[in-house]
């Protein structure tokens, strides 16, 4: 109903934000860890990583209009690719990060090819079934040759990041924080370039009216496929960052319940935005940290919150915030 209008001013707010607000955000992120204890710095860095994961879901759903439950598979393949890079090829961290990105992308190409070719409703079902299938294959002992022992490997000690003539160690929490923040910002920047490119704009056109987009001459299936692959790459990248920070990878990351978490985070934060998923993730993780001590099943509250947000503010916390600022002038 009012989506067109609000979309327009929302875009201008975003562009304004990207012109000046990024300085504010960047300085906040630089100064924030100085106020935090060591474990809190790691906690915030984890929020960044999961936020990037949620952002990758937003790219598929908010911009591509595809409700994908396979994002977790690509997060998992990111962890896996990172492990393969580190343990099999003996790459440095940079090589392993690239390896993780490539692993997720390579797996996304065939999955996306089939999934984006089916009708809208089938897409969700296909992605759920793909993730069930992947988890089953990786969990059964009979197909170990596919993934090798790299699904559950983790780094034995805090990794060193080589910068040519010197190197920094993840054992220092500040290094871990700043490195993660920088790499996540890089991912956010990539995502931003992606959605503000002609490619991203044509995807939005396609999401609003696929028929019209097709008549204008856009290749609907191909665009969807490419967006699926790009988002998978970002999910894999965030998976590698997680494997680097937490030094822990597991089969559970492949399960579609993890994609469900991305759905919660980005729906609560705001699906069609860059910062919404981060807001939603931060909100969820901080609430989790403080509420789960008193009330273990606090996720019920998030389910209710999600239903309320879907009903009254489908653009999430970020949408509410932008509207608030617009009202203020």
């Amino acid at each position: 109903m009012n989506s067109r209008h609000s979309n327009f001013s929302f875009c201008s707010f975003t562009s304004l934000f990207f012109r000046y607000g990024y300085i504010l955000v960047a300085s906040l992120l630089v100064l924030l860890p100085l106020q935090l204890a060591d474990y809190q710095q790691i906690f915030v860095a984890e929020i960044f990583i999961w936020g990037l994961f949620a952002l990758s879901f937003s790219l598929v759903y908010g911009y591509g209009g595809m409700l994908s439950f396979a994002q977790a598979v690509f997060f998992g393949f990111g962890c896996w690719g990172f492990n393969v890079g580190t343990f099999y090829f003996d790459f440095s961290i940079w090589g392993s990060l690239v390896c993780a990105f490539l692993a997720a992308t390579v797996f996304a190409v065939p999955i996306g090819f089939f999934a984006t070719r089916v009708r809208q409703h089938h897409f969700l079902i296909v992605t759920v079934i793909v993730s069930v299938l992947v988890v089953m294959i990786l969990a059964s002992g009979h197909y170990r040759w596919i993934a090798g022992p790299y699904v559950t490997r983790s780094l034995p000690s805090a990794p060193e990041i080589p910068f040519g003539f010197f190197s920094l160690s993840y054992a220092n929490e500040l290094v871990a924080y700043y490195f993660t923040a920088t790499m996540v910002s890089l991912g956010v920047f990539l995502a931003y370039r992606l959605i503000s490119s002609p490619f991203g704009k044509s995807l939005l056109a396609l999401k609003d009216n696929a028929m019209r987009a097709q008549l204008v001459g856009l290749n609907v299936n191909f665009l969807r496929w490419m967006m699926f692959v790009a988002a998978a790459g970002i999910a894999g990248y965030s998976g590698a960052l997680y494997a680097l920070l937490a030094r822990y990878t597991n089969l559970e990351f492949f399960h579609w319940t993890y994609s469900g978490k991305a759905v919660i985070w980005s729906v609560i934060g705001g699906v069609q935005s860059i910062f919404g998923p981060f807001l939603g993730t931060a909100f969820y993780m901080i609430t989790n940290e403080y509420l789960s001590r008193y009330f273990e099943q606090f996720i019920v509250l998030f389910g209710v919150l999600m239903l309320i947000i879907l009903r009254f503010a489908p653009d999430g916390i970020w949408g509410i915030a932008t509207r608030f600022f617009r009202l203020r002038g």
Partner: protein
Amino acid sequence: MELVILLAMNGLFWGLIVALIALGLSIIFGLLDIINVAHGDFFMVGAVLAWTIIQHVDNFWLAFFIVPLVGLLLGAVVERIVMRPIENSASLSIVAAFGLSLIIQESVRATFGATPKRILDPIGVTVPFFDTSYDVYRFVAAFISVVAIGAFFLFLHKTKFGTWMRAVRQNREMAVAMGVPSNIVFMVTFGLGTGLAMLGGVVAAPITSVEFRLGLDVLPICFIAVIIGGLGNLPGTAAAAVLLCFMEGVVTSFTEPTTARIVSLVLMSVVLLLRPEGIFAERKR
């Protein structure tokens, strides 16, 4: 050979229960255009309620009458409160169903507990079957499923309300113009779908263990059945569910279960790509 027959029978009986659940998924999809991700959780709630009833009343058969009615009510309320306000957006309704599934799972975990529990076989009689013995309850479960499926189709084709449901599905505007109360039809349809899933939960409760994650395993099988049968095609869905589980049972007797599931998933992919409207659909062009 005995193993093949045994596993095939297990598959067949399990398939009848899955058919019950998948039918619910299919009518909700066909009429309301919602892929109900929470459907597996309604199935789980049915099983949990059956367990609760046994704890309090110590009569399993009572559950067969109470639980579907609870499901009918629950589904109708959910449709009215959660789904109705966002009925115009298919993807929003899927996300809402996912939120619903979270709420259901976590509330069950908070009240029922996280540890799996078992329901004792309510009949407790076995028949000799080749070298092993076979639970009579499985036959009863299959019988109940068949009766429920039959009753559902009778309801759909022989009653006024069933006719309304089919009419709204074919053409909502026209049906409303003819005086069909489409809002009530939607509520009852969602309620019926939920009731079928919860009845499936009761029937399956003595066969599987009861826990709050029960729905996660059933949902993908139901999805596959619904796709192979054709989205919204009710007899096709039921047939596909039975066929699929039967086939999985047979394949399991030759290889291990993972491969059996992979076979059915590959089958589904092939169907999806070659005949997206399901294998039982008539060719339109």
